[in-house]
């Protein structure tokens, strides 16, 4: 069968040097639902952005019905009949659904510049009926459910004449029932001649809905299969399968008393999506608790709540016996938490400031560094900085060099050096080795185990599965903002098994998950 839309040896290198797509071949047949799976950072979004005209390819070409096309903006793609539903909805909450549908292409009353609301409502209702996507045309977006907003997004692309639909993780924000409903509707769209590209992490859904599935990993297209010819284990292996990079030597954990109690935490993003959904766990002294999950399943928001960078809507956080629910980061630090932030460039460090300033950022107010009259004690500050630079092997010409001039690995050592010498009882560590060279990774891993052996409690969040599995003593798996599994012994679980939980194919029972509370 001839391809409807095709990417041929497509490479996309961003201006910062990241190669997000490497000679990717991808082809979609008319009238099919084509699944595209892969972890975050695998290059799916970039590929879709190129097909939708939001990014231009560095090399390679796009063929539409066999003819080469080049889109300079998404408007070109829309004109060619391609529509995209983004993961973050492109809707205006305060306007009605009908108004959102026609935005930019509004019906007007005859011979005037007046907006014709009635006609907009009529258009919405007609489209809604024709494609069997039920929406309340007159309701405001802010008042309707997430699933209805999504239907509206699909209708919006249809209103603009799309017959190829790209859906970026549409089910990430839906309940199972809503997902079922969406699948019926998408099958109906296929019957009416639409072609759909369906991006997802959840293999079960891909198998239920799609005709074919393509797998991406590390910017490459790993393979395309007919769904009938392949099992989920094969796809899962293609998605997460990777070589084990490093082993970590560590003795068995000897957990002590609880240092962190997280109880019933929740967080909702600007689109009312439950990013953290009633999460509870306990972290004990002398243990590394790993948090695994596909990026975007609430790990970031959970850490932000713990570190005082976001507010939980419900529940409480207790650090070393002190209730620090929604307290300021300063208060939480005083209670005994140190935090290696996920983003070292914006949260973890002040780039233009010196290594020394960054290293003492959490302790400059202490007696050791502030003398009588509030004057900073330069000599003590430099001594402290030199000590940490040496201990953590930060490669620099001087401690007065700016952090922004360091390599990723050394920058991370500055963050880790500060946080690990903060005399905290609890370390919340997020993505410790993202974008860090192999030598530094090994170094950082050793320091983490050292902290554990010194009796600290460590919460480790990382999207590098090998890393979490080798460092952690026990594991929790997050999916759609919830804890879906708890493994008291990290050594007893395989990455394949974790993959099934991460991808939403499996979930533990409530009793098993409750064990993470240790109460």
């Amino acid at each position, binding site marked *: 069968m001839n391809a409807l839309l095709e990417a041929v040896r497509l490479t996309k290198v961003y201006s910062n040097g990241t190669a997000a797509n490497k000679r990717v071949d991808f082809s979609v047949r008319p009238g099919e639902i084509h699944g595209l799976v892969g972890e975050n950072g695998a290059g799916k979004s970039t590929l879709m952005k190129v097909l939708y005209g939001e990014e231009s390819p560095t090399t390679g070409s796009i063929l539409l019905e066999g003819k080469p096309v080049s889109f300079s903006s*998404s*408007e070109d793609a*829309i004109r060619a009949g391609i529509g995209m539903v*983004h993961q*973050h*909805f*492109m*809707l*205006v*909450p*305060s*306007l009605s659904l009908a*108004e*959102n549908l026609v*935005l*930019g*292409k*509004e019906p*007007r009353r005859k011979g005037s*510049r*007046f*907006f014709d609301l009635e006609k907009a409502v009529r258009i919405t209702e007609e489209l809604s009926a024709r494609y069997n996507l039920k929406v309340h045309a007159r309701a405001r977006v802010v008042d309707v459910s997430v699933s209805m907003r999504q239907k509206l997004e699909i209708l*919006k692309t249809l209103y603009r004449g799309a017959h190829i639909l790209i859906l970026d993780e549409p089910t990430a924000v839906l309940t199972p029932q809503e997902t079922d409903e969406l699948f019926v509707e998408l099958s109906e769209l296929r019957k009416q001649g639409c072609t759909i590209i369906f991006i997802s992490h959840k293999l079960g859904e891909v198998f239920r809905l799609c005709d074919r599935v393509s797998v991406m990993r590390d910017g490459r297209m790993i393979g395309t299969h007919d769904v009938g010819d392949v099992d989920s284990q094969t796809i899962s292996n293609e998605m997460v399968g990777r070589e084990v990079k490093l082993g970590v030597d560590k003795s068995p954990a000897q957990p002590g008393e609880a240092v962190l109690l997280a*109880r*019933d935490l*929740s967080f*909702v993003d600007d689109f*009312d999506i*439950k990013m953290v*959904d*009633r*999460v*509870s*766990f306990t972290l004990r002294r002398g243990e590394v608790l790993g948090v695994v999950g596909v990026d975007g399943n609430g790990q970031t928001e959970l850490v932000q709540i713990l570190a005082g960078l976001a507010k939980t*809507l*419900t*529940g*409480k956080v207790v650090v070393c016996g002190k209730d620090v629910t929604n307290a300021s980061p300063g208060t939480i630090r005083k209670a005994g938490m140190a935090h290696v932030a996920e983003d070292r460039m914006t949260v973890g460090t002040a780039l233009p400031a010196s290594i020394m300033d960054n290293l003492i950022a959490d302790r400059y107010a202490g007696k050791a560094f502030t003398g009588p009259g509030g004057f900073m004690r330069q000599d003590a500050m430099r001594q402290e900085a030199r000590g940490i630079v040496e201990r953590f092997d930060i490669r620099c010409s001087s401690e007065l060099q700016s952090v922004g001039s360091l390599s990723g690995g050394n920058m991370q050592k500055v963050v880790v050096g500060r946080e690990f010498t903060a005399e905290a009882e609890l370390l919340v560590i997020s993505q410790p080795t993202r974008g860090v060279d192999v030598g530094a990774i090994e170094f950082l891993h050793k320091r983490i185990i050292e902290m554990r052996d010194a009796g600290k409690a460590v919460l480790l969040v990382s999207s590098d599965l090998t890393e979490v599995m080798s460092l952690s003593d026990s594991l*929790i798996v997050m999916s759609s*903002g*919830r*804890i*879906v599994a*708890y493994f008291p012994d990290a050594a007893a679980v395989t990455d394949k098994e974790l993959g099934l939980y991460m991808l939403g194919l499996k*979930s*533990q*029972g*409530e009793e098993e*998950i*409750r064990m*993470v*509370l240790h*109460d």
Partner: protein
Amino acid sequence: MIHFLISVFGSSNYWYIVFRSTAPILLVTLGAVISEQAGISNMALEGAMLWAALVGVIVSAATGSAWMGLAAGILASILVCVTLWYFALKLEANAVLVGVALNLVAHGGTVFVLYSLTGDKGISSSLASKTLPFIKIPLIQDIPWLGKIISGQNIVVYISIIAVVVLNLILNKYTIGRRIKATGANVEAARSAGINPDRVKLFALVIAGVLAGFAGCFLSMGYTSNFTSGIAAGRGYVANAAQVVAGGTAVGAIFAALIFGLTDALATFLQNVGMPPELIQALPYAVTILGFIVVTLSRDRREAARKRALFSGGAASGGAGDGGTAKKQAEGTGA
């Protein structure tokens, strides 16, 4: 005190002044509303009013026509707002900083121009400037008490009320209004729908310029009959707080501006009973800011309660420990 207040609120003179005081703040608040709806904090409204007030006086004196003065004043005000647009959107400078810079230029610049022309740094009384007409409405002016309030106001007072209607039409009935709201609420959504956000913002700022222009010209050619240095007196700044109280709607702007107008008029009377004038002059501003705080706080509370409600009722997640506590807490804060 009570006696005094009753006598004040009973006098038609008080309500006449209320209208007069409300008009300029209402106009400039409408300007802030449309700017904010399009997604720009328009700090430059203060400067726009100042230039409008000065240019209006100068041109009306030069041409002998108050209308020419008004037109020129509005043009000057538009120019200030377009400058804000150019720096903030084309050159991507911080809109608030550009606004403040434009205001500082206006504060010094208007005095400089005034001094260059008249040799006076404080007031334009040596210029034979005109004032915009006061309108006596037939029949209505004969109604006892009410007639004295509604009739005989400056034309700009009536224009300010028409402006509410027009802005309401623009925001709610015209296609452009949808695009303004879309741009302000979710610029990516607007762009993805094929709307050019920069053009929408330019339109909004031009309208804001017109509104601030009316307000500025009224101050120097109706409210008083001269330009004095710093004549806008912070109204442009207060407008940005008032638009929050207004909830981003043209009708809401009436209430927000009335808070200011009522206290401003009251202040005129309080001066007669020996309250310190500095305190009195601060009153309208303080009350508006207070309204701003109350509105913002209660809105944040409602939003948090609404989000929290998303979690009540639903079954607790797998790892949830004590669902009961959370629910109690949610109810406690929600109430």
